[in-house]
Each structure stands twice: as structure tokens, then as C-alpha cells.
């Protein structure tokens, strides 16, 4: 058993879960704003209102009886994603990338029938994937055609970029790449690769899988150090605008790069995880405290904030 002393963690500026919950989520995220991000449907509608790019919504299923006639609604849709609106941690997301005859092809390549989709939707409506088992609605939205620049960097699943936004300032970012071990999911604890991204440039800093450093994608063997996100500033801008959109001080934004539509907001998280620190190899606390120490209204627009962080939070600097 190996442990690291708490003083060492503090020197590194690692943000712990208790500190995150109390000093940041508890202090900067007003409770009444949580439904905006906990409910993907609300997030989506809000994003459309604020003209934040997000995958188009096909339709919403809110009653069990609608499921019986779901084939009709799915007609003509080749690829789509089924998401429970209140699902957390990527639970209950079913991505269909195509059809073969009567069957639907999951992102993993497994074929499933319409009955499986019905059951999945029914479970989601009953609240199987929602916090506390509350009844839920299901949204069906367009599939992300991920950008060619990520070709070979992800096993199944869409690579997404998690950016922590504190008081409107993007403070830390990582690219999450699904692997065979993570079963196409982008959660680090399930085995996805986390690539820390330089806030200033969008270049890969370092990468980890299961907390261990990796240099190449474990399945595709592509070198991870070559990654540089295109249109990095736009992505930061998109993340930064989520602050105005929701009013939440401490959020994690999940952004994907679509081949044709560019950066798209996938979802927001009011309780973003701490493993982004592992992927970046540095603690969040110094940057968070730095933002806290800024004068209120030092930077009024997302553009000003993004320019400020791209200047301040460099790989060698803070």
C-alpha cells in the first residue's frame, strides 16, 4: 500500500473531493440552477436559446405509451443518440450509428433490435438512470460525426473535450478518448485515456490511462503527443459562454468536435470529476484560487476571459 502525504498533495495544489464540494460547488453553484445542467433537455433548450452550438434534437419521448410507436419516429434516422434527460455519468446513453435490415447497430458494433431500444427507453422513462430513480424523459438527438483530426484516436465512442469553467474562465481541459477497456465510454475510471490539454494552445501535455502515463493510444497505437485541437480558441469560447448561459460558477463542459458543425456542447456537469488533474499532472487549486483573487468584472465578455486564460494558464506557467 502506497500513500502520499496530504501536505504533498496540498503543495501540488490538488483539489480534493470535500474541498470541491464545499468550497466550489457549494459556494458557486446555486442549488436552483442545478436542474439546468442535470436535465439534458433543459440544457439543450437553453443552449439553443443562447445560440450555443449543440447537436440538433430530433424528438423527446416523455410517456411510456409513445414507445409503442417509436419505430415511426425513428424512420429515416440512420444514426442517433438516445439519452435519458437526467442521466448522470453517461448512464443510459445509447448510440446507434446505423442500421442493418431490422437491426440497429450500436457504436460498439453490436446489433440490437427495436425491442431492445424499447426496453432501454422504458427503463429510462421509469427513472432507472436518473438520480434517485425519478421519472425521466428521453431525448433523441443527432449523432456526432467526429472530426477527422481525431481519426485513430478513439476506439468506438466519440472523443470529447472536458473543460472546467470556473466563474466563466476555462481553467483546465482534457481530451477523453474511449478505449476497448472503457467499452467505448469516455469515463476515465472505466479505462478511457485522458489527455491533458494546454489551455494556451490546445496541445496535448500528457496522457494517462488508469492513472498511469501512456504515450500511445492503447488500441490504435497512435502517438498521443501529436494531438492538437483545431480551433482551440472557439472551443474555449464555447465553454466560457456556458457560464452566462447557466449562471453556475463551477461547471464541467463536455464539448465534441463535429466534422461539419464544429464545436458542439454535448452536456454540462455541475459536479465535474477530479481526474482531470491526473490527466494534466497538476492540481486545480492554484488556478481556481487565482481566478477567485481576480477583481470582480475584470473581464466582462467570454472573449476577454478566454484571452486572459490563454495568456495566463500556460503549460510552463501557472
Amino acid at each position, binding site marked *: 500500500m*502506497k500513500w502520499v502525504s496530504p501536505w504533498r498533495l496540498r503543495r501540488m495544489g*490538488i483539489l480534493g473531493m470535500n474541498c470541491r464540494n464545499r468550497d466550489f460547488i457549494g459556494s458557486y453553484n446555486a442549488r436552483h440552477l442545478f436542474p439546468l445542467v442535470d436535465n439534458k433537455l433543459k440544457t439543450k433548450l437553453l443552449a439553443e436559446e443562447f445560440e450555443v452550438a449543440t447537436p440538433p434534437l430530433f424528438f423527446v419521448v416523455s410517456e411510456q405509451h409513445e414507445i409503442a410507436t417509436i419505430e415511426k419516429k425513428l424512420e429515416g434516422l440512420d444514426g442517433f443518440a438516445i439519452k435519458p434527460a437526467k442521466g448522470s455519468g453517461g448512464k443510459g446513453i445509447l448510440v446507434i450509428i446505423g442500421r442493418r435490415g431490422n437491426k440497429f447497430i450500436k457504436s460498439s458494433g453490436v446489433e440490437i433490435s427495436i425491442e431492445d431500444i424499447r426496453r432501454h427507453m422504458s427503463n429510462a422513462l421509469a427513472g432507472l438512470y436518473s438520480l434517485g430513480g425519478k421519472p425521466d424523459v428521453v431525448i433523441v438527438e443527432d449523432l456526432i460525426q467526429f472530426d477527422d483530426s481525431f481519426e485513430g484516436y478513439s476506439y468506438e465512442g466519440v472523443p470529447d473535450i472536458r473543460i472546467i469553467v470556473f466563474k466563466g474562465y476555462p481553467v483546465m481541459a482534457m481530451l477523453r478518448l474511449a478505449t476497448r477497456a472503457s467499452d467505448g465510454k469516455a469515463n476515465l475510471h472505466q479505462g478511457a485515456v485522458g489527455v491533458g490539454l494546454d489551455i494556451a494552445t490546445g496541445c496535448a501535455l500528457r496522457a494517462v490511462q488508469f492513472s498511469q502515463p501512456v504515450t500511445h493510444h492503447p488500441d490504435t497505437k497512435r502517438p498521443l503527443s501529436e494531438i492538437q485541437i483545431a480551433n482551440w480558441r472557439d472551443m474555449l469560447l464555447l465553454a466560457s459562454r456556458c457560464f452566462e448561459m447557466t449562471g453556475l460558477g463551477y461547471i464541467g463542459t463536455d464539448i465534441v468536435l463535429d466534422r461539419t458543425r464544429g464545436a458542439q456542447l454535448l452536456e454540462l456537469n455541475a459536479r465535474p470529476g477530479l481526474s482531470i488533474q491526473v490527466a494534466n499532472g497538476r492540481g486545480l487549486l492554484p488556478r481556481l484560487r487565482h481566478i477567485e483573487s481576480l477583481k470582480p468584472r475584470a473581464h466582462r465578455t467570454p472573449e476577454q476571459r478566454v484571452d486572459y486564460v490563454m495568456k495566463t494558464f500556460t503549460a510552463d506557467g501557472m
Partner: protein
Amino acid sequence: MKARSRAPFYSIIIALMLIGLGTAWMRHVTMEIPFFAGEQRPVWLIEARVDFYATGSEVTINLALPQDPPGFRTFTEQAASPGYGWSVIEEGDIRRGEWTKRTASGPQTLYYKAQFVGGLDKEMSAASEAVPAAKPVEWDGPQATASTQLLAQALSTSSNSRSLARELSKLLNDAARDQNASLMLTVEPDKSVLLEKLLNQAGIPARRALGLYLEDARRHQPLTRMVEVYDEGEWVLFNPYTGAQGLPDNVLLWHRGDTALLDVIGGRNSRVGFSMIYQTVPALELAQANDSIFSIIGVHLLPIEEQGMFKLLFLLPLGALVVVFMRVIVGLKTSGTFMPILIAVAFLQTSLYLGLIGFVSVVSFGLVLRTYLSRLNLLLIARIATLVVLVIFIISILSLVGYQMGLNTGMTITFFPMIIIAWTIERMSILWEEEGPREVLIQGGGSLLVAVMAFSLMQLPVVGHLTFNFPEINLVFLALIMLMGQYTGYKISELRRFRAMIDNVTSEKAGDIK
């Protein structure tokens, strides 16, 4: 927005702790509730035995009973006398027990038993009513002269009522007593009666009293006659045979005043004897017998059934404290936040090993059945309800099997919170599908570990004793829980979680330097 002062919070915490501990201390002091279970206190068990010969008609036996004897507290009392009616009659300061029977003949024996707690403050209860007056005393010719001379002699060597009483008993007990004293003693051989009469003659209110010398394991003891003198608003006790003033520690004042100790109607040859033993009783029982304003807070006044419920209820905060500690400070994962407490409470009823075996087997059975259920594609609520019913069946079957195998304790599995178990099975099954069996083991094991820890604290006799008898202790738990709610340091699990990262970063840096 962050500059909110912490002072109010910490004052609440301190206030909660002070109120909790302070009330507990006050209750300990005033109600004598012991801090430790099983503490014993000594008491005197005194048995008064009345023997008489019944003449065949209606019988009424009337025995004076102790009424708040100074330095003692009556703990329990009871009368044992088959065939007799018994009641305690209280008239003002006087308390008497009365046995009654329509017809009785031949030798009869009646018992009165009482337990007394000794070692208390000896406040001679002042006569609450008006100042008693001295009783008129009449003597025949020669005695009148003798008593007057005797009194004059004692008065000349005394200064107040107390010293007069002392001087008088000295004169009566003097080995070489003078003529007056000898004369008076031939007329009134009982020194206590004589002393009382002489004092009354001198205009000092005095009355007789009967005390019992307490000595362990004595039988057939008589009461000792004593005299109480009223002086400056209180009754002062004198032993007429020694002249000693005040009440010795080992004397219990059984009866005070001029009424007879024993009245017998319908019998003859009556006598009273006393036996006593020094015994110990649980201190807790003594405490409950004590009336106090603080007893309102306690739950001892409730019926036993409700008390049992409260006993469990007051243990829950400790369980919550353990859960908070394990999750906030240690960072253990549990399935269902407070499910471990309920499991721990169930363990209290079942005993640990049986509970663990029962719980694990019920949950694993449930998981097997649940995998089949998932294929049936039921709606969530219906599925949970199905699980609840199945869990009930599993538990019933397990306990019946246990019973058939001669394990009576098998029945206690029914104490498991079934709805909670059904939800646990459901969550674990989903966890299994989504995150794999490893996560199920981690969370299930974490829950069980927390449950076992909470259980091992809850089952400590001292914990059960303290939380039940001092429910205010839970305020301290509350304060601790709130205090942990302010903890923003690292969890112990995070010290491991970020270990690899720190190692990586430091090894990279070391590589740079090379």
C-alpha cells in the same frame, strides 16, 4: 461571497456540545443515572416482621412506616402477607401501613419489606406546621418535687434546649445518680419517656422517636427509643441512653412522634422485629425511581415497548456519524448512503455472523433472480416491487429453513429492512451491468464494512447505555457530524488516488534534470 464568518457556526457547534454534555452531567448528578452500565449501588433491605396471636375476629394491624427518614431515601417497599388486605395510609407527616382481614385466628406473621438508599444529606425535616407546643406533664406529689429539682439541677448547668437535653440525659445515665434521678427512674423506668416528659415539663417541645441501628445481616432487631427536641425551628435527635446528640449515620429513623409503632385490633401478644441486609442493586434502577425535572427528558416514563423503539432510535445518530466519517474522511464507497446504518441495526437484532451470512445470501439470491427479471423487461417500479416480494420470500424461506434446522435465531433475519434490500439488489444489479462485478464488490464490501463498524460501536453496552439514558449525547454526535460537514481536506482514499499522479510528475521532473 466567501467571507462569511465562521464564528456563528462554531458557536453553534460549541453550544450543542455544551448543552449535550451539560445536560448529561446534570442528569447524572441530580438523577444519579450512572455513566456506565451495570454500576451497582448499595441499599439496605429492611424487613419488619409483625407477629401476633389472632383471636378469631376482624383483624386490623397498623404499623408505623418510615416517612422520608433523614439521610435515606425509600427505593422500594412491599408487604408480604397472604390473605391480608394491605394499604399505606398517609396523614400529614405520618405514614402507616395497615393490614386487614375479616377473620383470623392463631399465630400470624406479617412482613413489610423496604429498600433504602443511604448516605444522603441528613436534613432533619423541620416541622412544617406551626411551632409545636410543649405538652403538659403531671406528676404525683413526690415525683413532682423530684422532677423539679432534677430539672433545676440540669438547667443550672445548661444554656439552651440542646444543652439541657444533654445535661438531663447525663444525669439519668450517671452511674452514681442522685436520689431524684433514681426516684424518677423507678416511676418511669424508660429513660426516653422520662427524658421526653422532663423536657416538656421544662417547657421545651419534645417527642419520642424510634430508630433502627443498621448492621449487616442482623435479625430480630428491636427499634431504639430516642427523643427529639424542638429547637430553633428543627427537631434535634438525642439518644437518651448515651446523651449523644444528632443522628448517627447508621441509624434509620423508623418512626417519629407520639403515636404507637404498632396498633393491633383483634390480636394479642404482638411484637415487631426487624431484619436487615446490605445489598447492591443496579444504579440505573435507583435512578429511575428518582423524581426530578430532568426525568421529563428521559424516556423511562414510556411503556417498555416504546422504550425499546427509542433504544434503537437513539443509536441511529451514532451510525450516521460512522457513515459520515467513513465517507467524508476515509472516502469509502457504499451502496446507498445510509443503507449501512439500517443493516447495522438489523445486525443488532440478528447477531453479527448470522446477520452477515443472512444479508449476503439474501442479496446474492436476489441478484440471481434479478438477472432473470431483467430479461422479462418489466417497468422499473413493477420490477422493484417484484424484488420486494421476492426478498420477502427469500427471507421467509431462509428463516424457516433455519428454524427447521433448530436455529431459532434464524427467525431474526426478518428484521432486515426488506424494501431497502430490494433497492440494494436493484442498484447492485445495474452496477454489475454497467461497471462490472468489481464495482459491485467494492461498493457492497464498503457498505458491509461500514455496517459492521457501526454495528460494533452500537452493540457496545456502554454506548447503548449512554445513548438511551442520556439521549442528549446525540447532540454531541450532531455537532461532530456538522463539524465533519465543514471538512475540506483530503479523504484518505484520495491519498491513494492521486499517488500515481504525484509519482509520475516527480519521476518526469527527475528525468528532465538528468
